[in-house]
Each structure stands twice: as structure tokens, then as C-alpha cells.
């Protein structure tokens, strides 16, 4: 799932080398993904009214659900 998030985000930003994702388990089934991108790419991963961030969350949540897990995506600014 981390790979999927990373893959999508790298396609969206101008500085793919600055994309950094850390996983933090919370409880048995939940994983928090902390997403860091270059400052000038923040807008790109958030999008207008947060639409991009939400779409990314929906996709990651779907992938997690398929594997019987839940996930939280946090964008670090």
C-alpha cells in the first residue's frame, strides 16, 4: 500500500525525489501513512478543496479494506 501511495504521489509532484512516506502502525489493523513532499508540491497532493488528498485517501482506504485493514493518510506540512 505504501508502494501504491508512493507511486501515485510521485506521478503528481514536480519533485518525486522528495517524496517520503513513513508507516506507523496503530493497533492491530490500522496503519498511518505520513506523507512528506517538497514544499512547492504540497498544493499538488492536496488539490482544490482537498480533492486530490481525498481521492488518494479513498484509494488507499479501498486497498486496505481489501486486505482487511484500515489506513489513515496524513499529509505533513
Amino acid at each position, binding site marked *: 500500500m505504501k508502494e501504491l501511495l508512493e507511486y501515485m504521489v510521485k506521478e503528481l509532484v514536480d519533485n518525486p525525489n522528495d517524496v517520503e512516506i513513513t508507516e506507523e502502525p496503530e493497533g492491530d489493523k490500522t496503519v498511518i501513512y505520513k506523507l512528506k513532499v517538497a514544499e512547492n508540491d504540497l498544493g499538488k497532493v492536496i488539490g482544490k478543496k482537498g480533492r486530490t488528498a481525498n481521492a*488518494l485517501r479513498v484509494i488507499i482506504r479501498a486497498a486496505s479494506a481489501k486486505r482487511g485493514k484500515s489506513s489513515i493518510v496524513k499529509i505533513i506540512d
Partner: protein
Amino acid sequence: MSEQRSMEEAISQFVESLEEEQKSNKLIESKQKIKNEEEAEKDKEDENYKIEYEEEKEEIVEKIKPIEDIDKIKEFIIKIVSSVTNSEVSEIKYDKENNEIQIYGKDLGIAIGKNGKNMEAIEYIVNLVARRKNILESSVVIDIKGYRRKKYEIIKNLAIRMAKKAVREGRKIVLKPMPSYERKIVHDTLSDNKEVKTKSKNKDPYRRIIIYPNKEN
């Protein structure tokens, strides 16, 4: 091969539409200039525009991206869909006419999600990336296992049925909240129906259509 040819067709159509647009822009420009200039110079001006126009046309052809780019989008979609579903995409095809990418495979349900929510999210991200890379001229529609097509028929039938109900009972009918593309189906379906009118109220994701019977009838 036929797909490549259809992409070529799509691109040549796109070039044509660009040319049309340029042509009309040029026309407006040239009209303004003509206003300020002597009648005698007019013909010469037009000649110049013609030459200029021909030159720009060649430039556009060069700017068009190669056909293989649709494959990049396909690859991107396959990667996302197969990662989300933990399953394999067995077939993916590009329908040029509707600018739609159709995906088939076993066990892809989670990529569609409740009311197509997950599919919408995938479509949104795919179009963002496509636009960023100048791959597609207009937003591509993603359909997984014909879900969208089925949904289209269902909503169209619902719209027709509810319009009849509104007329029959002489009162407004409030539909359940729907996403924008579904509301569009209702509006489009009923736009020719003179017995009713459709309006939307509230904000997404609670935005819903109300069908009013026309008083005159």
C-alpha cells in the same frame, strides 16, 4: 493495430479542432485590424494571415504527443487497479469515441466501491496525471466491468419513471443525492421532456435533483 489507428484518428481530429479554433481567433483578430486600416490594404492583410496560419499549423502537428502515450495511462491505471484489488486486470481497452477506458478482470469490485466512489477517485487521479503530462486532450472516463454503463441505464430509467410520477401526481419528486455525472444523466434525459423541469439543490455530496411537473400541462 486498430487501436493505434483509432488514436491517430483521434489526434487528427484534435488537430482539426485546434485549427478551427485558431482560424476563428485569427478571424476576430483580422476583423479588428481591418477596421483600422485602409480598404486597399485589406486583401494584402488576408494574404499574410493565410501564410501565418499555414506555418502555425505545422507547429501544432509537431506538438502533438506520440500515440504510445495512451499506453502510459493504461499502465498507470492497471497499476492502481491491480494494487487496490490485489487481483489482475485481464483486459483494458480505450474507446476513442467516448474517450473511455474500459477495464475487465475478476474480483475488481473494491476498485468500483460503494456507488462507484473508489472508481471516481481513481478516475480523478488518473486524469490529474494525464493532464499533468499532456497526454490526453480531454478527461478520460474510467469504467470497470461495465459498471458505469449499467448505472447509466438505471439512472436514465429512474429519471423517466420519476418524471412520469411527477406529472401523474402533479407534485415535485425529490431524488436521492447523486454525484455530478449521475445528475447530468437525469438532466440530459429529461431536457427534452416538456412536461417537467429539473433542478438541483444542496451541496455535494448531498446535492440532489428535484423534478417539477410543468404547471401549464
